[in-house]
C-alpha cells in the first residue's frame, strides 16, 4: 500500500443550459442541467482497490459474468491489488455495473451524459470552449494516438474552468444513462427521415457534427454493453448538489 494517491474531491458545478450533441428531441436544442457535483479526477486503481477490500463480491475472481466480461481488472497484479505501477493510474477494464457499485458505495452515482458533456465542454479558461478551434483540435489529439502503452497517473492534467481534470486526454468514462444513448451502431442513420417515421424516433440525431471528440465519446459509449470492459474505459462519480 505504498505510493501516495492524488485524492479526488467533488467539485460543484453550477446549473446551466447548453446545446448538447444529443438533443433531447427533435426541435429541442437546449438541455438543462441542475447543479451537481463531480469528481475532480477519474477513479484510480488504488481507489478501486480500497472499494474491493470492503466489497469483495466485486473482485475479478468473484464477480458474476452477468456484471463483467472476462477481461474485468485482468491487468491487476492480483484479485485485490493493482500493483505499484498501476496504483495512481485511472482504473480501466471496469464494467458499468462495477463503476455504478463503486459510486453507490460512496453515496454517489455516475454522471449522466448531459452532466459529463456539460463539464467536458470547458477549457482551462472557458466553461464552454466548444467553438474554440484550437482547443477542440487539442482534445482531439488524444484520439489520434494509440491506445497502447501505460496510462498517465490521474490528476496530472490541467484543471478546466470548473476545476475538473483529465476529462479529456486520458480515458473514456462510463456514464449513468449508458442505456439511454439510443444511438444507432450505424452513425449514418442519424436523421434519416425514413428511419424516424417507420422505426420510431429511437435513433437520436447527432448535432455539432464538427465536434469530433464528443461524437467519438458517444460512439464508444454506444458500442459497449454494461458488462463490457475495455483497456481505456474508466469512470468518475457524481452526486446531486445536496448530499444524499
Amino acid at each position: 500500500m505504498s505510493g501516495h494517491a492524488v485524492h479526488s474531491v467533488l467539485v460543484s458545478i453550477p446549473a446551466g443550459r447548453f446545446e448538447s450533441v444529443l438533443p433531447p428531441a427533435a426541435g429541442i436544442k437546449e438541455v438543462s442541467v441542475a447543479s451537481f457535483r463531480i469528481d475532480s479526477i477519474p477513479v484510480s486503481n488504488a481507489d478501486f482497490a480500497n472499494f474491493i477490500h470492503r466489497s469483495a463480491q466485486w473482485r475479478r475472481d468473484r464477480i458474476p459474468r452477468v456484471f463483467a466480461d472476462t477481461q474485468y481488472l485482468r491487468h491487476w497484479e492480483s484479485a485485490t491489488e493493482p500493483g505499484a505501477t498501476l496504483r495512481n493510474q485511472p482504473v480501466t477494464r471496469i464494467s458499468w455495473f462495477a463503476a455504478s457499485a463503486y459510486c453507490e458505495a460512496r453515496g454517489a452515482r455516475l454522471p449522466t451524459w448531459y452532466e459529463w458533456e456539460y463539464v467536458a465542454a470547458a477549457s482551462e479558461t472557458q466553461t464552454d470552449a466548444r467553438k474554440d478551434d484550437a482547443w477542440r483540435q487539442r482534445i482531439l489529439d488524444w484520439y489520434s494516438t494509440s491506445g497502447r502503452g501505460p496510462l498517465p497517473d490521474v490528476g496530472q492534467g490541467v484543471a478546466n474552468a470548473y476545476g475538473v481534470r483529465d476529462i479529456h486526454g486520458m480515458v473514456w468514462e462510463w456514464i449513468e444513462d449508458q442505456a439511454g444513448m439510443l444511438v444507432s451502431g450505424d452513425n449514418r442513420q442519424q436523421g434519416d427521415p425514413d428511419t424516424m417515421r417507420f422505426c420510431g424516433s429511437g435513433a437520436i440525431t447527432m448535432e455539432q457534427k464538427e465536434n469530433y471528440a464528443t461524437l467519438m465519446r458517444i460512439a464508444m459509449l454506444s458500442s459497449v454493453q454494461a458488462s463490457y470492459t475495455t483497456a481505456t474505459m474508466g469512470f468518475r462519480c457524481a452526486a446531486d448538489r445536496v448530499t444524499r
Partner: protein
Amino acid sequence: MRTHHLLCVCVVAALLAGCTNDRGSPTVAATTGKAPAGTGGSHAGDFGPPQGEPVHAVLTSPPNVPPPTNRKAPAKVIVDLEVIEVDKEIAEGVQYTFWTFGGTVPGSFIRVRQGDTVEFHLKNHPDSKMPHNIDLHGVTGPGGGAASSFTAPGHQTQFTFKALNQGLYVYHCATAPVGMHVANGMYGLILIEPPEGLTPVDHEFYVMQGDFYTVGKYREKGHAVFDMQKAIDENATYVLFNGAESSLTGPKALKASVNQKVRMYVGNGGPNLISNFHVIGEIFDKVQYEGGTHAQENVQTTLIPAGGAATVEFHTEVPGNYVLVDHAIFRAFNKGALAILEVGGDARTDIYSGKQVDETYLSDKVASTEAVSIAAQANAAGTLTKEQQIAAGAALFKGTCSTCHQDAGQGIANVFPPLAKSDFLMADMKRAVGIVLNGLTRPITVNGANYDSIMPPMSQLTDDEIANILTYVANSWGNSGAVVTKKQVTEARATTKRPEGAAH
C-alpha cells in the same frame, strides 16, 4: 449477443410498417417476368443455399490478392477480420496512428464468389481505443452491415450476408465520426467474382488510394495527428497509395515482366478526394469502372470516386519502371500519390526505342562545363591560375551572358552594351561585380553610346563563377585587366542588399 433493437417511440403508430430499404425491393423487370439484361444484378445472384463444408476466406495484405475461389457452387464462407489500431510510418520519419482492418492500409483483401453466403466476424483488438464497424458496399441490406457489426474494443461481432452482386466493392468503417475513421485508413476491397470466375492473368495487384490530414505539414517529422479542420476543408496533407509514401516504391515496388497480363484492383477509400488514376507509360487495355461488368477499352486515366473501385487490366510490352499516379499531379509529387511497377525483361526497341538522341539545344550557345569544374577544384586547392579562371569564365559566359552581350562581347547597338573594349566596365571592376550580383536598371553611357536596358541580377551564380566570368571578360576582346577573385565577390555579396533568386 446484442440483438437488433427495434427502437420505438410508442406514439408512432406506423411502427409495424417496418423500415424502408432502398436496395431490397424487387425490380420491375422481375415482377413482370421479363428477362433481366446483363448479369441480372442482385435478383439473379442467388444461387440457392450454400453447399459443402464452410470455407475460411483467404485474406491478403496489400498489394497481394487472394487466389481465385475456383468454386462452381455457392459456399458458406467465413471471414475473420480483425480491427487493429497501429502506429506506422506514413512518410519517412513521420508516424501516424492508423485504424486498420487487418493491420494494413488498405485493409485485407476479401475474395468470394457471387452467390456465396458470407459469415462475417469482426474482431476489435483489445488494445483498440475506438469502437468500429464495417459497411461493405457488396452487401445488400441496410447499412451494409454497419449496425450489425458495431464492435467495442476487445469484443467481436458476427453477421451474415449473401453476396448477390458480382463486382469489386469498397468496404469501410462507418462508426462516428465516419470521416475520421475513414481518414485514418479504415477501408479496403472485397471482390465478388462472377460465377464463372475471372479470366486468368499473370499478376493481380491490390492498390488503394486514400487522403490523409495531419496537423503537421507534409513530411514533417515526428508523430502526426489527425487534423479535423483540414479534413472538413478537404485540404489533404497526404494523398497515398496503400497508406504510406514508400508502400509501393523502391524495394516494395510492384513487379512484373514483359509480355504479361496485369490486373489491378484499384480502390479509393477517400475520405474526400476523387482519384485520377493513371499509370505513366501504359494504356489500360480494359477498365471496369466501379468494378462493374461493362468494360471500357484503351483508357489513359480513369476516375475512381471516393468509396469506389475500378479493375484495370493491361499487357506489358516494354521493360522499365511505370509510375502509378493520381494525375491531379500535385498530389503525386507533393503529397505522395506515387507507386512504381517494375517491368523486367528484354528491351523492345521496335515498340519503344528508348532515348536515341540527347543533345544540348541552346541556340548554339553550347559550352563545355569541364573548365568550370577544373577552376572550382583549383580554387578549392588554392592553386587557381588566371588562365584557369579565364577558361572557366569563357564557358560560363557562353551559357549565361552571351545571349545579350554576344559571343565576342560586342553587345547589340542601343540595346545591350558592349563588354569588349568597354570604358564603363574597365573603369571600375568593383562596380562590375556589383552589377552582376544586383543587376542594373539605370541608364548608362558606354563608349559614348547611351543604354537604358534592364540587366537582371545574376546572384544565382556562385562567387567562384562570377569571379571567373569577370576575369574572362576583363581579359578578352581587347580588354586587359586584373584578376577578379572569389574573395572580392564574396565581400560584395555580403555588403550589398540584393534581390535573391534572380532569374537566369
